[in-house]
């Protein structure tokens, strides 16, 4: 299921939120080798102190995190500005109530194994659909996000619309800054792909069983 966590309800999901910070450490430090701060196995940065919105995809008992992302409005401080200020001075200063920033988009590493392609693509679409629903409700028209080459390939593969605004080589691998348009037709297309993926997933699971 999807849980949207903000500071007002974070206490209800403290274990889940800790799990998310642990997943972020495993993905961004251990797997992608990004220069991130990890304390007690949890990856957190200054932007986690600014009351961001977390969208968490988890199992039905809300204990295991399958994927998560973090949202902040571009009218406030943004991480993109810190990461891309020298390479993309124009794009990182986009600032409007309808443009938000998505960072720390990640999926459970168990889904990244070779045999789990369908589940991974499904999880990615579930998160994107949830992001779309939250965004439409909040009047958000664009999401700016940073990601690596693998993630960019994944976005293209699942048909998620994204325009690359530029990239930086500050980290081990190129990191891109992209802009996702948000509108009802875009979200409808994601829902349709999600539906197709879920049928596919059902079919493969039946074969496996």
């Amino acid at each position, binding site marked *: 299921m999807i849980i*949207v966590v*903000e*500071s*007002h*309800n974070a206490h209800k999901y403290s274990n889940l939120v800790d799990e998310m910070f642990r997943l972020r450490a495993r993905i961004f430090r251990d797997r992608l080798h990004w220069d991130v701060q990890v304390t007690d196995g949890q990856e957190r940065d200054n932007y986690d102190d*600014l*009351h*961001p*919105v977390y969208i968490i995809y988890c199992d039905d008992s809300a204990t295991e995190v399958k994927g998560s992302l973090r*949202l*902040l*409005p*571009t*009218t*406030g*401080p943004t991480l993109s500005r810190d990461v891309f200020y020298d390479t993309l*001075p*124009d*794009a990182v*200063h*986009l*600032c*409007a*109530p*309808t*443009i938000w920033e998505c960072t720390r988009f990640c999926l459970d590493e168990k889904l990244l194994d070779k045999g789990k392609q369908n589940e991974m693509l499904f999880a990615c679409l579930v998160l994107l659909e949830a992001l779309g629903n*939250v965004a439409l*409700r*909040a*009047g958000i*028209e*664009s999401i700016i996000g940073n990601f690596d080459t693998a993630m960019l390939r994944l976005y293209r593969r699942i048909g998620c619309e994204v*325009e690359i*605004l530029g990239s930086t080589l500050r980290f081990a691998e190129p990191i891109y800054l992209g*802009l996702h*348009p948000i509108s009802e037709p875009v979200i409808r297309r994601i829902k349709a792909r999600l539906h197709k993926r879920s049928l596919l997933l059902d079919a493969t699971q039946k074969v496996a069983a």
Partner: protein
Amino acid sequence: MRGRSEAGARPGAARRRKAVATNRQRRSATVAPGLGENMFTEAFSIIEHTSDIGAVITKLRDHLRIDHVVYHSSKLGTNPSDPQRGPYIRLTYPAAWILRYLQMGYAEVDPVLREAFQRTLPFEWSELTIASEAEASFLADAAAHGVGPHGFSIPVFSKHGHRGHFGVSSAQKEQWSSFLPAARPTLIGIANRLHRRVVAEVFGEDGPPLTAREIECLRWAAQGKSASDIAAILQISPHTSREYLKSARHKLDCVTSPQAVAKAVRLGLLVL
């Protein structure tokens, strides 16, 4: 322009004009009577031209034809009850309710106030987490004084982390359910515009400057280019060129791009 070649440039322009017209229709179809683009422009004009911010709030209430409007900004940002810094509050609530609020020490109980400074997404008061009996009776008391029970709150931010809250409320269920769905985007725009004024005027924080690209987009807009034209010139998508213009309008506190062009010229940011 989906799958269409640009061979016939003239008909293309006509079609584009048509597309703009349909967009406009689509937009006005999604807004309630009296809440169209004019409503937006008028609200921005009230915020820009009314010298006293308290008077801005009253005028906005009348303009939106809603029961009450509240704006609350905390100097420290995340902690509204910090004793070191006085909060900046302007509202239309009845004097009797303000007095009672202070006498009862309701600032400690008020769940709208608490969540407005914890949440980041806009929220309806019906979504509040009511944690105690005291909070429930507070909301009942507020409603008895004509504040709520229907309300919508928009948390607002600044680049230097300065948080605020803009809220509107109504006592009538029917008025509310016809008002809110259509008014949401307008209210979010108004909340942010007002916050920018308070942050600049009361707390002296500079807004983010226009970037070279935003100025470039305004320059093309000044020459009558549409967002799609600008996208083609700059080799970006039409959506992204619209976002650069949107960002420029936000930074210049304008509703439309022509307004933003005029203001940029007036401020000497754009030389035509």
